[in-house]
């Protein structure tokens, strides 16, 4: 639903490239992780998990050091603001709305938990396992595997809810959220009160190095 730029509307870049790359790589990797698990390709499933660990680590760092629209402190609001948003009051800050912000942190936290359970998981035969399973017993690893399986169902439901919410914004409210996550720009009736501050390439580099380091350390610990 592209909105034609009229004199009354301005195009503003909201999402930086790292956020957009993070989002779509995560979509692809969760899909591949699902498929490799269902078809028993556990080597590739582990690689997906490692890549997702790197991505989520980067996203957490970016939530503190990244562009303003990526920061938790900017988009996480209390219940009062969330209620006001539901009643129709807008915040005037571009980026995640107060309600969508909940979905962001819940999905991120559950994905991290899912990765951690996978790191400790052991299959029923004791042959396939996550790298950190050497620190737990067979039964402990089996328990992690069960949690890994149960939590995935919860994740699927929440991803479904996320997609339904996006569909509502796109189809009913005619706000092009999908395009925004692709090219990074959104149209506003007027220039937002708070401009988006984008993080530097140096900060990006630090984040990539940190995320790779975390992932490497976890794999090496196994």
């Amino acid at each position, binding site marked *: 639903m592209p909105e034609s730029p009229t004199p009354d509307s301005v195009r503003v870049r909201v999402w930086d490239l790292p956020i957009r790359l993070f989002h779509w790589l995560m979509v692809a990797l969760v899909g591949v992780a699902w498929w490799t698990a*269902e078809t028993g390709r556990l080597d590739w499933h582990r690689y997906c998990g490692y890549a997702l660990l790197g991505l989520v680590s980067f996203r957490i760092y970016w939530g503190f050091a990244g562009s303003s629209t990526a920061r938790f402190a900017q988009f996480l609001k209390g219940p009062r603001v969330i209620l006001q948003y539901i009643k129709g009051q807008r915040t005037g800050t571009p980026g995640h709305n107060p309600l969508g912000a909940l979905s962001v942190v819940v999905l991120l936290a559950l994905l991290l938990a899912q990765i951690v359970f996978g790191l400790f998981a*052991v299959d*029923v*035969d*004791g*042959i396939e*396992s996550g790298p950190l*399973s*050497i620190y737990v017993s*067979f039964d402990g690893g089996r328990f992690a595997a069960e949690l890994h399986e149960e939590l995935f169902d919860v994740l699927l439901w929440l991803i479904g809810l996320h997609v339904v919410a996006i569909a509502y914004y796109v189809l009913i409210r005619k706000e092009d959220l999908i395009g925004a996550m692709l090219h990074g720009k959104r149209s506003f009736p007027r220039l937002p009160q708070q401009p988006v501050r984008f993080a530097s390439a140096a900060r990006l580099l630090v984040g990539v190095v940190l995320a790779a380091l975390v992932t490497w350390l976890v794999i090496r610990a196994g």
Partner: protein
Amino acid sequence: MPGSFYSRLGSTVVAAALLAAAVHAADALTPVQLQKVRHDHYHELGDAFKSVRDLTKADSPDFAALIASAEVIDKASVNQGQWFPQGTGPEAGKTRALPEVWSKPDEFLAAQKMFSDRAPKLLEAAKAKDLPGVQAAFKELGGACKNCHDTFRSPEEH
């Protein structure tokens, strides 16, 4: 002599009763209990496999522990044929053992043989403190597990 006849008959009856009791005692486990016994055996086997996998990740593994786990695996590879008595399939209760275990006995035996042929190699390599040998034998063993599971075990439910 009637007394002798009756006493012989009596001891025959007692012997028969004792035999029946003995047979009954050996057979006393219900199919569901037998499934549980099988499940526990495979749980022990999975535990041993995990131990081997964990131990082989170390640069200088604990070979005594490796030998202990390899012995559990070797013993299981020989004994597992007895873990599938008639009547302990899906008809008896929740199990991932497929009816093919009982309907294709020759193929099932061949699948077991692949396991029992390969298991001693793991034990030998562990005793020889040959880490690459252990790793190679472990991989081979994994293939034997998969070979049997593909045909005789139902996929995990999701």
